[in-house]
């Protein structure tokens, strides 16, 4: 995945994805399962009430972010953590690398963290001779395959069990098996050794609590707990908008995130970590370093798209999105795919790179209904399309078409004339169109409805 200004080749990526029946089947099965489980999981809940409450708390954070950042830094430091503020990806990478190199770290185990993908942390550390191992099973699989994750919760859902079996056999030298239980056991055994010999653990944090300076980590596998309690050093990277005001706000989100993500009552493990090990403790890393990252958030906060920062990364919008369901995550060629991904990518990477991916929506609104914190995704996507046109990224033919539309729409006579022209030229337009809309729309009728009303 490139972070250059070159535009994402979305159409080409889409065509490739649509020609891959195995991929399409895998994505459909996965998203349908997520949606079914989520629907079951929230059926008996006062979801509207929970969403409204969560949205209010998240807006409160965004409206007072400088104060909460300051409070978090003070609380976390009082609890014994070291807090660093990084303005961008480069600075965050340098900070993390510096912490690790200063302590002679040679091997790092990582729990899943989308922000570390966003800043391309792994390649940076690997260049400096530090071994970085992903421990979330899905992340471990895509790391072995040298691919990017395709979904923010289940990184390897684009792969079939057979593909994973072959991958393990090839890269780990084990006998081929496509039984998920066997494959999971292989990963458990391999990674157990790594957990026990790693010098440091790196995580993100879905939430951080301002009044206690705590980080909150959710996993089902236990790897989040492993990497934060077994190695002597824990480095956490998170972006500023992940803060919650108080530990009293935590229960609402501890309930909401797993339910919205997978329909589960709770993830198997939820850890609230407040500082490193203290005198009298037998649990916790010796040192806890927290890198609080901006990477464009302050800028977004100032503008009309600020509500995207309410996002808690549950992936519900991805799972209900008909476009994501059809093409999978890789087609977006971005850290974050799906509806929230389109918005974040446009804001973080700029219109020049991101404008093709604004096409990846029918504006159906399923994401708006699903979002547990009421991010107004359709409104944000519409506004981004507007901005894209304003900034000159509209396709030429389309722009011409819209200008023609604009020229006739205020005049019924011109409009009717346009209808007649369209009828005359339809057969030619159809021939040129291939799969384009011309071939799928019928020919304009000889006597338009307006003529029948005269």
């Amino acid at each position, binding site marked *: 995945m490139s972070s250059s200004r070159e535009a994402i080749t979305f159409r080409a990526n889409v065509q490739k994805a649509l020609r891959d029946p195995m991929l399409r089947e895998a994505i459909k099965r996965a998203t349908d399962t997520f949606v079914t489980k989520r629907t079951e999981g929230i059926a008996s809940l006062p979801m509207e009430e929970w969403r409204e409450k969560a949205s209010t708390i998240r807006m409160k954070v965004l409206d007072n972010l400088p104060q909460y950042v300051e409070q978090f830094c003070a609380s976390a430091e009082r609890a014994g953590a070291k807090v660093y503020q990084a303005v961008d990806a480069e600075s965050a990478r340098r900070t993390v690398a510096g912490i690790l190199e200063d302590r002679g770290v040679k091997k790092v185990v990582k729990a899943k963290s989308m922000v570390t993908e966003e800043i391309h942390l792994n390649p940076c550390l690997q260049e400096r001779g530090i071994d970085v191992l992903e421990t979330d099973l899905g992340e471990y699989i895509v790391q072995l395959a040298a691919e990017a994750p395709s979904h923010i919760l289940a990184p390897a859902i684009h792969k079939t069990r057979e593909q994973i079996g072959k991958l393990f056999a090839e890269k780990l030298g084990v006998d081929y098996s496509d039984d998920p239980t066997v494959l999971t056991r292989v990963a458990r055994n391999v990674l157990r050794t790594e957990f026990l010999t790693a010098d440091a653990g790196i995580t993100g944090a879905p939430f951080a609590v301002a009044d206690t300076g705590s980080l909150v980590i959710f996993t089902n596998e236990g790897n989040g707990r492993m990497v934060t309690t077994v190695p002597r050093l824990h480095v956490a990277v998170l972006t500023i908008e992940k803060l919650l005001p108080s530990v009293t706000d935590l229960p609402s989100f501890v309930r909401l995130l797993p339910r919205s993500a997978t329909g589960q009552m709770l993830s198997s493990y939820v850890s609230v970590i407040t500082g490193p090990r203290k005198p009298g403790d037998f649990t916790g890393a010796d040192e806890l370093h927290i890198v609080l990252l901006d990477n464009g958030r302050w800028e977004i906060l100032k503008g009309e798209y600020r509500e995207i920062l309410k996002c808690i990364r549950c992936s519900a919008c991805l799972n209900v999105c008909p476009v994501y369901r059809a*093409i999978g995550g890789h087609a977006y060629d971005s850290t974050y795919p799906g509806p929230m991904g389109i918005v974040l990518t446009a804001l973080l990477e700029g219109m020049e790179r991101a404008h093709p991916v604004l096409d990846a929506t029918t504006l159906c609104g399923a994401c708006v209904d699903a979002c547990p914190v009421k991010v107004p995704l359709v409104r944000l996507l519409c506004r981004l399309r507007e901005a894209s046109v304003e900034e000159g990224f509209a396709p030429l033919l389309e722009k011409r078409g819209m200008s023609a539309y604009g020229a006739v729409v*205020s005049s019924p006579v011109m409009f009717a004339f346009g209808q007649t022209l369209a009828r005359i030229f339809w057969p030619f337009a159809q021939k040129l169109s291939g799969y384009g809309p011309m071939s799928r729309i019928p020919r304009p009728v000889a006597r338009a409805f307006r003529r029948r009303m005269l």
Partner: protein
Amino acid sequence: MRIQFFSTCLVDTFFPETGEAALRLLRRFGVEVAYPKEQTCCGKPPHSGGYTHEARKAAEHFLSVFDGADPIVIPSGSCASMIKNHYPELFKDNPRLLEKARKTAERTYELTQFLVHVLNAHEAGLKGTGRITYHASCQLTRELSVKEEPLLLLNSLQGAEFVSLPHADRCCGFGGIFMARQPEISVALAEEKAATIRNTNADTVTGCDHGCLMNIHDALRRRGDNVAVKHIAQVLAEGL
């Protein structure tokens, strides 16, 4: 009672029989239908692509043509939603037009909304035939919250069998400008919808929006499927 009828550009250009069916339906309930001759388009096509300037032009024209106080009835969820939900936003910087947009939005109805809430058409013993299934369009369902009305009407048809479509409110892939910008995904989604329709063994699929119906019709015919694709106005008017 009198209403103003907005046919929509799709009905006007491609599906005039839907306009005719809607008129027959409304007149059956004693409604006097006025057709402002200068109507063109509501502005949804440019709006969905981010062409605010063109959308505003269309909207301004609509507001001036549909002057007055009578209800405006529209055989399309996306057009009705454009007027009710998006016109105010288009004119947020123009107090005079904003006021006009708000007032116009208040008296705008999607067809099934009007049939059920104003005319009680679902209790009129309308007649129908065959096995009918229903696709729930996105803006109709999610922006206008029109979910029950079409079902009430279809279920009331005496002589017809209504069969529920699994994932009825899953997007068909039309998306207005989406069909032009991402035709491959549009076709993929339409084919998925067509397959679900096929599995119901319905002989007719209906809906409230011609954009969707056009897209679905194409996917069905590509596979040689003969399922009839009809706007709900036509289905309801057939038994009159």
